[in-house]
C-alpha cells in the first residue's frame, strides 16, 4: 500500500491526521451529549459528599500525564528511543493512577449517591464513559510502545506516537470539561 500511495503522491500522514481529527470530533459530540444530559436532568445540583480533594488530585494527575505524553512524542520525533519509552511508560502509569482514583471515588459514591439516584445516574455515567476512554488511551499508548520494540521512531516516522498522544490529549481535554461540570458548578 505504501508503494502505491507513493506513486500517487498521497500524503498518508496528512490523511491519518485528518481521520484522527474527524474521529475525535465525533467523540466530542458524545461528551457534549453527556454534559447536556447532566444539566438537563440535574441542573447544577451536586451533593456535598463529593470527595473534592480526590477530584482535584486525579485532575492534576491527568494533566501531568499529558505533559509526559508530550515529552514522549517529542523524543520520538527526534529519534530518542529511550526517552520515548520512559515518558510513555510514565504516562501509562499516571493513567492507571487516575483510574485508581476514579475507582476510589466510585466506591465512595456507591455509598453516598448510588447509581439509582438522580445525581448518581449522571455521575457514574459521565465518569464511567470517561474512564473507558482513558482505558482505550492507555491501550493505544501501550500499542505504540510495543510497536516501538520492533520499529525505530524518528524524524519522518513518528505518526503512530503522534496519533496515540493526540488521542491522549483529547481524553485529557474531555476531563477538563467534565471535572467542573461534576465537581465545581452549583
Amino acid at each position, binding site marked *: *500500500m505504501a508503494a*502505491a*500511495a507513493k506513486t*500517487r*503522491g*498521497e*500524503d498518508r500522514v*496528512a*490523511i491519518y491526521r*485528518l*481521520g484522527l481529527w*474527524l*474521529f475525535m*470530533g*465525533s*467523540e466530542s*459530540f*458524545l461528551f457534549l*451529549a*453527556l454534559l447536556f*444530559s447532566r444539566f*438537563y*436532568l*440535574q441542573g447544577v445540583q451536586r451533593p456535598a459528599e463529593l470527595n473534592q480533594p480526590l477530584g482535584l488530585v486525579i485532575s492534576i494527575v491527568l494533566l501531568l500525564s499529558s505533559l509526559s505524553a508530550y515529552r514522549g512524542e517529542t523524543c520520538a520525533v527526534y529519534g530518542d528511543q529511550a526517552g520515548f519509552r520512559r515518558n510513555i511508560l510514565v504516562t501509562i502509569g499516571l493513567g492507571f493512577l487516575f483510574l485508581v482514583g476514579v475507582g476510589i471515588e466510585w466506591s465512595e459514591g456507591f455509598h453516598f449517591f448510588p*447509581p*439509582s*439516584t*438522580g*445525581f*448518581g*445516574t449522571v455521575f*457514574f*455515567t459521565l465518569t464511567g464513559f470517561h474512564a473507558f476512554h482513558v482505558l482505550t488511551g492507555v491501550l493505544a499508548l501501550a*500499542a505504540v510502545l*510495543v*510497536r516501538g*520494540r*520492533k*520499529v525505530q521512531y524518528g524524524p519522518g516516522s513518528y505518526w503512530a506516537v503522534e496519533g496515540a498522544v493526540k488521542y491522549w490529549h483529547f481524553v485529557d481535554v474531555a476531563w477538563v470539561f467534565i471535572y467542573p461540570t461534576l465537581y465545581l458548578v452549583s
Partner: protein
Amino acid sequence: MRTLLSLGLLKGVIAGLAGTAVGMALTMVVRSALGYPAWQPDQVTLAGTLVGIPAYLAGVGAFSAWWGWVLGKGIEEPGGHHFWGWTRYFGADPNHKVIGIQYMATSLVVIAVAGIYQLIARLETSQPGLQFLSPDTYNSLMSLHGIMMLGAVLLGVSGMINYLVPLMIGARDMAFPRLNAFSYWITVPAVFLLLFALPAGGFDTGWTGYPPLSTKAPLGMQLMILAFYLVGWSSILGGVNFLATIMKMRAPGMGLFRMPIFVWTALATAFLQIVFTQFVGIAFLMVLLQRVLGLGFFDPAKGGNVLLFQHLFWLYSHPAVYIFVLPGLGVISEIVPVFSRKPLFGYRLVALSSFGIALQGAIVWGHHMFTAGIEEWLRIPFMVTTMLVAVPTGVKIFSWLATMWHGKISLDTPMLFALTAIAVFLVGGLTGIPNGIVPTDLYIHDTYWVVAHFHHTLFGGFVFPAMAAIYFWFPKVTGRLLNRGLGKLHWALMTVGFFVTYEPMFWLGLNGMRRRIADYDPALGLGPMNTVVSVAAYVIALSMLVFFVNLVASAWRGTRAPANPWRSRTLEWQLSSPPPEHNFPTPPQVLGSPYGFGIPGSVHAVVTPAGGAGEEKGGLGRVSSG
C-alpha cells in the same frame, strides 16, 4: 470443505458463538457467586454479546492487520485471488469495491426480511378485528420492520458510497481500507442480533424505542439496541472514511466543483454521520444502562426525564433522514443529465444545496416533539427552521426539471426509476408541510398520515433512487446488463404498487387510523381502504421478486456490458466493466465538468486505461492511448 472453513464469515460466527457462550457462562457464575439467581436475561445476554462480538471480529480477521502492525510486522498486500473469486466476499477484504458489494448485498437481504415482516403484519390490519396475529407478535413485527429497514437503508447508502466515490474521484481506494472492512464487518453481527430479536421475545416500542416503554420491553429490545449501536459505529467510522477520502484522495485537477454531485451528497452524508450518530448511540445506551444496571435517566422517581431521550434521539434521527436520502438525490442528479444528454442545470447551487439540507437538518429535531410536551414557545422556532428545508430541496427538483427541458430524453430503466423517485419524493416533501406546521401536526401526528409521509420520503429518497442506481451501475459492477424487459416490469409494478399503497394512507390517517395498531374500531369505517393498502403492498413485494430474479439471472447469464453503455462522462465509466482490481494505476487528469454534455471540446478527465476500456464515442471523457 477446506474452502468453506477458510471463509472469514464462518470462522467469525463460530468464534462469536463460542465467545457469547463464554461471556454468558462467566456472568452466570459471577451472579451465583454473589448470591443472585444465575439467570437475568438482560445482564447475561449483554455480557455474552460483549465477549462474543470481539471474538467474532477476531474470527473474521478484522483485527489481524492491526495486530500485525502493533507487533511491528509488515502488512501483507491483499490480492492474488481473482476479483470474482466468491470466497473473497465472505471475509475481511479491504478493497472498496468488494466492500461496496458486501454492503449492498447485505442491505438487500435485510430489506427482504424486513419487508416480509411487514407483509405479515399488514395482513393483520387489512380488516378490523384480530385475525391471526397476537398483539405482541404484531408489535414486534412492526417494530422490527422499522428498525431493520432503516438499518438496511444505512447499509445501502454505505454500499453505494463505498463502491462509487473512490471511482468517481479517481482514487486508488478509500482513505482507510482496513477500517472500511471493519466498518462493514461489525454490521453483520447487528443483522444476526436483529434476526434473534424476534425469537428472544421481540419488542413493542416501534423502531423509536421511546422510554419508559423501552426500559420495560422484553429481551428483544436489548438485542435491537446493541444492533443499533453496532450499525451506528459502522456509520461513524464509515463517515470518517468517506470524508477523509473525498477531502484527501481526489485525482489531480479534481477540484471540489468538478466533483460529480453524488460525491457532494456523500460528503454531506459523511458530515451528518460523524456529528450526529453519537447522540442516538448515547440515547440508546442510557436505555440499556437503565435496563441492566437500574440507572435513572428516564425514571421520574429517580430524577429522570423521559423527554431527554426524545431530544437526543431526534437530534440524530432527523439528520439521519438526510443520511438516507441525500445519496439517493445524488444518484438522481447523476442519472438525469446522462439520459437527457444535457449538463446538470445550476451545478454549483445543486452541489451546495446538499450542505444546505445537512445544516438545516441539524436544527429541526423538535418538530418530532410538537405533541410530546416540549415548551410551547419552542415549537415556533422549530416550525420555522423545519419549513426552510423546502429551499434546498426545491433547488434540486427545479434543477432536474431544467436539465430535462429541451433535452434528448431516453426512458431507460434507470431513468424511469429516477423520474418516479422525483415524483414520490415531491409528494413526500409536500405532505411534510402539514407535519411541520404545528396546528396541523397536532392533528396528524402519530397517524397513518405520518406513515405515508415518511414512506414517500424514503421511497423517493432511497428506494427508487437505489433501484435506479442498481440498474445504472450494475453493468459497471458485474460487466453484464440487467434485463430490460424485467426491469421495466419491475418499475411498472413498483410504481403502481407504491402509489396505491401509500396515497390511501393519507386519508386513513386523517380519518382516525393511528400508527402502530394491531387492530382498529370497525365503527371508524376504515376497513375497505385498509384492504386496498394491503393488496397493493403485495404488488410492491411482487415487483421486488421480479427484481431479485433479474439480479440473479442477469449476473449469471446477462448480456455482456461495454465499458460505458450509457455514454456517461464520470470517471468510473472510463474503466473497464467490471473495473480492474486496482482502480487507477496512474491517476487520471481531471480537466473539466463531469456534466459537459454538448459543450464543444469539454473533457471531464483523461484516463490512462488499465483494463482496456475503449472509447465509446466523441464527447465523452477522452481516453489517451499511453
